[in-house]
């Protein structure tokens, strides 16, 4: 009787010791474990389907860089930027700027794309969550740089001029797909991911670049 107790106790002790002393699985194994856990931990809800978890290679590379603290190397960064640059198309009618009053509304709205939002409801740009834009709006975030006086600082007096073209195209590109200019940018890819439509992006363009826009006063 005593012997079997001692035996079972030592088995338990060995198991405990093993559990404590066991080495951590390799990084690749932990990546796989994470993917398995993700597959078991979510359900589709409203318009948020499970494909939103599908690994996007650019996201995978950037996430790994953030996690390890080792930035993606220059070559990989360029490849990511080139891939995203290809998604950018000029506006269908050649006009880049819309209505800055509407643009302010797009910037203020954080609606859309969550599982409590109706599938076809209008999405907002969420801009004030991260950026200062107008002077009057005090409720702004600091995750991104201030965009106050955006066009003014860049000397844009006539958005249709040849002189303003590089800035206009760059700003358009940034709003369409920020990762074309900064491989691991935190900024959502508003055009490429279908968050904002062409009209909404033109309206935000006007908010930023139109000399008549209050943010450029």
């Amino acid at each position, binding site marked *: 009787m005593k012997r079997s107790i001692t035996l079972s106790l030592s088995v338990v002790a060995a198991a405990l010791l093993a*559990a*404590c002393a*066991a080495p*951590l*699985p390799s990084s690749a194994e*932990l*990546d796989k*474990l*994470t993917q398995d*856990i*993700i597959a*078991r*931990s*979510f*359900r*589709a*809800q409203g318009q*948020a*389907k*499970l494909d*939103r*978890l*599908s690994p*996007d290679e650019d*996201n995978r590379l*950037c*996430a*790994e860089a*953030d*996690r390890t603290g080792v930035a993606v190397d220059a070559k990989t960064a360029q490849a990511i930027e080139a891939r995203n640059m290809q998604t950018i198309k000029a506006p269908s009618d050649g006009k880049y700027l819309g209505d800055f009053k509407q643009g302010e509304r797009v910037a203020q709205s954080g609606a859309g*794309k*969550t*599982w*409590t939002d109706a599938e076809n409801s209008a999405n907002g740009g*969420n801009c*004030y*969550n*991260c950026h200062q834009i107008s002077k009057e709006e*005090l*409720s*702004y*975030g*600091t*995750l991104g740089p201030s965009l106050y006086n955006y066009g003014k600082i860049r000397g844009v007096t006539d958005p249709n001029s040849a002189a303003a073209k590089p800035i206009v195209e760059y700003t358009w590109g940034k709003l369409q797909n920020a990762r074309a200019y900064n491989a691991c940018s*935190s900024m*959502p*890819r508003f055009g490429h*991911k*279908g*968050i904002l439509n062409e009209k909404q992006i033109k309206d935000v363009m006007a908010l930023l670049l139109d000399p008549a826009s209050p943010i450029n006063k």
Partner: protein
Amino acid sequence: MQQQARLTGLGHFLLGLGLLCTVPLALAQKSATDSIAEYRAMLQDGNPADLFEAKGEALWKQKRGPKNASLEQCDLGKGPGVVKGAWVELPRYFADTGRVQDLESRLLTCMQTLQGFDADEIAKTPFGRGEQANVTALATWIASESKGMKFNLSQSHIEERKMYEVGKRLFFMRGGPHDFACATCHAQDDKRIRLQDLPNITKNPGAGNGFGAWPAYRVSNGQMWSAQLRLNDCYRQQRFPYPLFGSEATIALGVYMGVNGKGGEATAPAIKR
């Protein structure tokens, strides 16, 4: 010499006026974030979370469920019935279930084994309803029993260490149409979204402050939010699909945050705007 040292009556008056003028300017320069911090400080007294604490304590002791038993034998990691200090050591590995569990998934385990409730049914119940509301009340009381204590999660079991690494990967994982990760908002110091300061959860003090404040009562919607609900709503705003209640992903994130917050002070249940 005497002339330099003396300030004329007019001089005194002008100096005084000048000081008076600067004072209102300084007051006007109180930032919007300072004002919100003052508002939050005023809310501290009379935190309605107290009501949920009282409810949770009653539920712990009450005989309920098909087995008509109380939760007083529930093991939250420090032995059956030990509630004080349990929360600051969660999530942790449990030998009886063979997995790492956070407070809310552990409550489901106890409600099933001790009281005969169906854990899967409770997990599927929306927040704020039925037994799910009771889980929130219980979690609020159990967290309050660790108030003021320091986070001290174990990383001695291999499963706990694995979950930390999984939680870290989840924290940085980007997805959804906006390519958001937890890290998008919570991996830098001194950032805010609109006027809401964002804790840096990758290390202390942000990790302890952020993780340690939930469960919390949200004044804006009059709701008691547990840690599971806080994570759930984070994922909603990240435009991800719905994280299952008590899922391994949510537990892994709890391990990551809690371990990062080691030594931080537990303030739950807190009050939020």
